[in-house]
C-alpha cells in the first residue's frame, strides 16, 4: 500500500518512525514524505537554543537514513490533494496514495495591519526564520517583539542574545495570558524588566512604517522605533491544502478530525498542530506525538483513540520559571505573591479546599512535578509549603510524568534503571525521556542518584578517581611521577586521557620542565614539541607578546624569522602573531632566533595561560581611566606558564567601554575611576558566556591576590578539560561559594593557595630556552630518527594570497 505524509516537522517525523516500528509485516511498501522546508525534521521546541550556539545540525531529530521503503522529499511542498484521483501534487510530480496523513503544522500569525511586509519584519517559526533574523540583526541595536506569550518571550531572549535592546508589545493586559493570570503576569513582567527589556502590555500593533533605515511601530497609543520587528503572536493551523481539497475545517481553523484523527475522508488523516480534534487544536508537541501514534496504530488495523491532552507546561523563559497545570482559575484560589523576590504561586481548589484542580507558579516551579501529579486529589502536604519557594520534600508519585514531551512517567524511568540503565544517555535511548526539550534531564539525573546508581566520576579505565581526587592525592602524598601514581592508585599503563591530565597536575604543582624525565612521554604532541600541530603534521609557533605590546625591533625579528623559514603568518585573536608551517626539525632553529631576540614561549600549545589582551588604556586613549596595558603585561608575566585543567584567557579594559572584551574571558578586568572590577567565568567558543562580576573597585594588589586564589582554586578542583565557565556553573553554591572560599577563606585554604601561586611565580622559567640548553631534549626534534636531516617528503606547500599554505592532503602533488 502507498502512503503519503505531507509535512516533515516533529510530528510528521514521529509518525514515520512510529509507523516503521509497528509495520513489521511491511503493509506500507511505499511511504513518501513531502517536506516544504529544505531541512529534515528538527527540534522546534528547542528552536531558541540556536541562539545559544546550538547548531542546526544538533537540532536535527531525524536519525541518519530512513526506514526501508520510505522516501523523504525535502523542499518539495504539496500544492494540491486530489481526493478523487487519490494523488498529491507538487511542482515536481504526482504521488498516488492509499492513505494520506496531513502533518502540515502551523504558520506564524501576523495580524492584518499595514507594513508587515517591510524589510526588517520577521516571524519566529523555522530555522530559516532564525537565520534570516540573525543575519539582519548584525550591527543593529534595537528590536521589538510582538507577542508576550511563550514564543514572544523566547524571541525576546533571542534578540537579547543577539545584543539588541529589546521591547515586547503584547495585546493582552498582561504577559503570558494563556498560562498565567494578571497577578502572575505582573510578577513575570517585573522579572523581565529587570533584565533591561521594555514591556508594553494592552498595546495592539496598529502598523509598521519605514523610517529611514529603521522602522516605526505603532503599538496602542505609542510609536516605537526599532531596527527590526519579530512577530511571535501565536500560530494558525496550516489547513489550506485541506480546505482546497474540500475537507471540513473547524470554525477557527484546523482540519476537522475525530478521535481517531481521521478527516471526513476515510483515507485522509491529520495530526499535530494542523489538526482540530473534535474542533480543538493543540499547540504543544506532546499531543501531536500522541496523534501520530494513534494514526500509526489505526493504519495497521488498531483502534487507538486520541483522548485529549494535558496542556500543563513548565518553562524557563528569560531565566524565569513559569508553570501552569490543570485549571488556572476555579472555586477557591489560594495565592502567594512576593514581588520583592519575583515569586508567585496560585493553587486552584474545590470550594471545600479538599481537591486540587490546578495552579500557576512563577519564579520558582520546583513544586510543579508533585503538584501536577496531585491534580484531582488532595494537596500532598501543607498548602503553605507549596506557596513559598522550593519543592517540599515530597516524593514524586510513580505515575507522574517526568518527560511531558514524550509522556514518560517516573515508573517507566525507574523501570529502565532497574533493567540496567546507568546514565542519562541510556535512559534517553531506552525511554525517549529527555530527547525533545531536555528540561527533564536534571530530574533524570536525580532519579538515577535516588535509585542508588552512582554516576561515575572515574577519569578513564586506568583510574577510578576524578581529576580533583587525583590532584589531591598527588598534592597530599607528594607523588612525583606517573608510574608511582598508577602503580599505587591505578591499573594498566595509562592512556591519552589520564597521561596528559597527570602531566598537567604535576606541572601545576611545580614539577619542573614538562619534558623532564618520564613527564615527556605523558604529553600530548603539542606539549611534547612545544608547538601546535596542524592538519598536515607541521606545527605553528607563537612567541609570547605580553598584553599585545611589542616593540618595532621585535616585530621585525618575527617578520625576519617568518621570512627566513617560509612561515605563514597570521595575527591571532589574543593579540599576538602565529607562525605556521614549521616542520618539527625546524622548531629549535626558529626558537634559537626568537629566544636570542628576547622572546619566550607563548604556551599556545598548552592547557595553560594563553594571553592577557588589553586595550590601549589611559596612556593614549581619551576615555581610558587606568593603565590597562601595564596591568595586562603584569598579569601575563605573573601567570605565564601556569598549567591548568584547560586553557586560560584573560583581558584588561581601561574603561567601561570594554574594548578588550574582558567579559568573554576566564578572568577579565575592567578599570573603574578608583580601581578595577574583576569578572570571572567568561567564555567565547562553542557556548559563549559572559563573565560574572566577582568584585568591584579593587586595588591592584587586592586584584592580583584575588585572581591568584581564583586560578589556584580552579586548578585544584576542576574536571579535566573543564573551562572556568563550566566549572563555575557546576560549582555547588556558585559565585557565592567561590566568594566565601577565596575572599572570606571559609575553607581555610587561602594561605595554601597563595603559597602555591608564589611557588609558581618564583619557579617560572621559559620552556623553550630550557630545551635549547639541553641536548637530550633537543635530540627529539628530528623528522626521522634514522635520517634526522631529511624533511618529511609528504609535506608540500602552495601559495595563496602571497603566503605559503599546505597542499591539501590526499590531493595529487604537482610534479615539477
Amino acid at each position, binding site marked *: 500500500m502507498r502512503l503519503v505524509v505531507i509535512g516533515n516537522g516533529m510530528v510528521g517525523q514521529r509518525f514515520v518512525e512510529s509507523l516503521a516500528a509497528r509495520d513489521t509485516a511491511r503493509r506500507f511498501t511505499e511511504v513518501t514524505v513531502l517536506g516544504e522546508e529544505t531541512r529534515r525534521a528538527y527540534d522546534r521546541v528547542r528552536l531558541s537554543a540556536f541562539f545559544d550556539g546550538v547548531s542546526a545540525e544538533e537540532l536535527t531529530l531525524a536519525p541518519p537514513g530512513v526506514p526501508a521503503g520510505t522516501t523523504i522529499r525535502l523542499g518539495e511542498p504539496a500544492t494540491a490533494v486530489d481526493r478523487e484521483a487519490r494523488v498529491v501534487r507538487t511542482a515536481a510530480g504526482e504521488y498516488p496514495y492509499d492513505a494520506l496523513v496531513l502533518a502540515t503544522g502551523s504558520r506564524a500569525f501576523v495580524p492584518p495591519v499595514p507594513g508587515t511586509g517591510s524589510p526588517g519584519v520577521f516571524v519566529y517559526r523555522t530555522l530559516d526564520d532564525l537565520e534570516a533574523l540573525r543575519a539582519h540583526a548584525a550591527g543593529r541595536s534595537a528590536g521589538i517583539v510582538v507577542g508576550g506569550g511563550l514564543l514572544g518571550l523566547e524571541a525576546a531572549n533571542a534578540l537579547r542574545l543577539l545584543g539588541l535592546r529589546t521591547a515586547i508589545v503584547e495585546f493582552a493586559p498582561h504577559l503570558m495570558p494563556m498560562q498565567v493570570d494578571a497577578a502572575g503576569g505582573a510578577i513575570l513582567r517585573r522579572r523581565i524588566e529587570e533584565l533591561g527589556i521594555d514591556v508594553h502590555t494592552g498595546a495592539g500593533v496598529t502598523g509598521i512604517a519605514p523610517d529611514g533605515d529603521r522602522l516605526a511601530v505603532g503599538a496602542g497609543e505609542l510609536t516605537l522605533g526599532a531596527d527590526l520587528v519579530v512577530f511571535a503572536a501565536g500560530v494558525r493551523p496550516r489547513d489550506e491544502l485541506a480546505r482546497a481539497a474540500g475537507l471540513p475545517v473547524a470554525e477557527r481553523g484546523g482540519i476537522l478530525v475525530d478521535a481517531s484523527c481521521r478527516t471526513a475522508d476515510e483515507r485522509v488523516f491529520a495530526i499535530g498542530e494542523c489538526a482540530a480534534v473534535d474542533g480543538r487544536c493543540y499547540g504543544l508537541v506532546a499531543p501531536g506525538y500522541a496523534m501520530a501514534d494513534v494514526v500509526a496504530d489505526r493504519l495497521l488495523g488498531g483502534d487507538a483513540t486520541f483522548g485529549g491532552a494535558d496542556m500543563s507546561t513548565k518553562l524557563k523563559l528569560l531565566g524565569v520559571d513559569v508553570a501552569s497545570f490543570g485549571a488556572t482559575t476555579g472555586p477557591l484560589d489560594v495565592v502567594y505573591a512576593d514581588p520583592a523576590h519575583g515569586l508567585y504561586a496560585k493553587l486552584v481548589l474545590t470550594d471545600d479546599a479538599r481537591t486540587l484542580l490546578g495552579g500557576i507558579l512563577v519564579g520558582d516551579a520546583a513544586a510543579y512535578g508533585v503538584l501536577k501529579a496531585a491534580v484531582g486529589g488532595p494537596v500532598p502536604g501543607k498548602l503553605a509549603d507549596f506557596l513559598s519557594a522550593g519543592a517540599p520534600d515530597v516524593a514524586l508519585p510513580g505515575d507522574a510524568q517526568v518527560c511531558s514531551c514524550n509522556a514518560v512517567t517516573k515508573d517507566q524511568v525507574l523501570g529502565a534503571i532497574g533493567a540496567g540503565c546507568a546514565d542519562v544517555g541510556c535512559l534517553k535511548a531506552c525511554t525517549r525521556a529527555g530527547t525533545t526539550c531536555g528540561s527533564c534531564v536534571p530530574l533524570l539525573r536525580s532519579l538515577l542518584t535516588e535509585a542508588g546508581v552512582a554516576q561515575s566520576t572515574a577519569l578513564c579505565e586506568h583510574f577510578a578517581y576524578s581529576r580533583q581526587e587525583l590532584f589531591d592525592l598527588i598534592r597530599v602524598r607528594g607523588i612525583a611521577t606517573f608510574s608511582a601514581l598508577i602503580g599505587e592508585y591505578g591499573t*594498566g599503563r595509562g592512556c591519552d586521557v589520564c597521561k596528559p591530565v597527570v602531566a598537567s597536575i604535576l606541572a601545576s604543582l611545580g614539577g619542573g620542565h614538562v619534558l623532564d624525565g618520564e613527564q615527556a*612521554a605523558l604529553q600530548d604532541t603539542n606539549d611534547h614539541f612545544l608547538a601546535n600541530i596542524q592538519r598536515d603534521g607541521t606545527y605553528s609557533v607563537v612567541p609570547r607578546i605580553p598584553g599585545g605590546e611589542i616593540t618595532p625591533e621585535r616585530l621585525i625579528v618575527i617578520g625576519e624569522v617568518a621570512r627566513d623559514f617560509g612561515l605563514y603568518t597570521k595575527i591571532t585573536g589574543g593579540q599576538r602573531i602565529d607562525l605556521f608551517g614549521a616542520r618539527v626539525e625546524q622548531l629549535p632553529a626558529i626558537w634559537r632566533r626568537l629566544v636570542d631576540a628576547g622572546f619566550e614561549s607563548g604556551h599556545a600549545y598548552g592547557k595553560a595561560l594563553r594571553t592577557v589582551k588589553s586595550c590601549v588604556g589611559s596612556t593614549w586613549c581619551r576615555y581610558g581611566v587606568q593603565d590597562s596595558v601595564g596591568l595586562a603585561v603584569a598579569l601575563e608575566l605573573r601567570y605565564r606558564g601556569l598549567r591548568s585543567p584547560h586553557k586560560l584567557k584573560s583581558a584588561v579594559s581601561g574603561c567601561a567601554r570594554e574594548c578588550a572584551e574582558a567579559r568573554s574571558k576566564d578572568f577579565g578586568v575592567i578599570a573603574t575611576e578608583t580601581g578595577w572590577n574583576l569578572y570571572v567565568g567568561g567564555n567565547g567558543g562553542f557556548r559563549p558566556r559572559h563573565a560574572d562580576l566577582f568584585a568591584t573597585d579593587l586595588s591592584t594588589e587586592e586584584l592580583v591576590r584575588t585572581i591568584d586564589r581564583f586560578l589556584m582554586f580552579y586548578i585544584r578542583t576542576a574536571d579535566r578539560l573543564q573551562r572556568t565557565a563550566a566549572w563555575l556553573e557546576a560549582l555547588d553554591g556558585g559565585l557565592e561559594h567561590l566568594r566565601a572560599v577565596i575572599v572570606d577563606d571559609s575553607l581555610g585554604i587561602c594561605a595554601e593557595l597563595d603559597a602555591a601561586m608564589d611557588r609558581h611565580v618564583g619557579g617560572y622559567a621559559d620552556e623553550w630556552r630550557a630545551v635549547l640548553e639541553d641536548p637530550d631534549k633537543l635530540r627529539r626534534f628530528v623528522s626521522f630518527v634514522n*635520517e634526522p636531516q631529511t624533511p618529511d617528503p609528504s609535506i608540500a606547500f602552495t601559495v595563496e594570497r602571497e603566503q605559503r599554505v599546505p597542499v591539501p*592532503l590526499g590531493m595529487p602533488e604537482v610534479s615539477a
Partner: protein
Amino acid sequence: MTTTITWTAVCRLGDLLPERGAAALVGGVQVAVFRLHDDQVRAVGNRDPLWGANVMSRGIVGTRGGRAVVVSPMHKQAYDLDTGACLDDPAAALPVYAARVRDGVVEVVAG
C-alpha cells in the same frame, strides 16, 4: 625459491623514550617505531589513515582494555599496536611492520 627478509637498523633503543615513538624512513616508507614499557618495540605506518598526515609516531602510547595502543595526535583515534586495527573506526587500520631489538639496536622490516 628463497625469500629474503631484510631487517633495517633504525636507531638505538636508548634513542626512544619508554612509551613513546619516533618516525623512521625505511626504504622510502615512513614507519612509526614505539618503545613499550617493557622495552619491546612495535612498528606501524606513520601516516594517519583517516587524516593523511604522517604523525602517528607523535601519539601517546598506552593501553585500552589491555591492548597496547597508540592514539593519533590528530583526532585521538586509538590503534592497536599489535594488529594495526583502529579501535574507534572499523574502517581504518595502520600497516604493521616486524620490529625487534638486537644488541640494543631497533630493527624493522619494511619497504
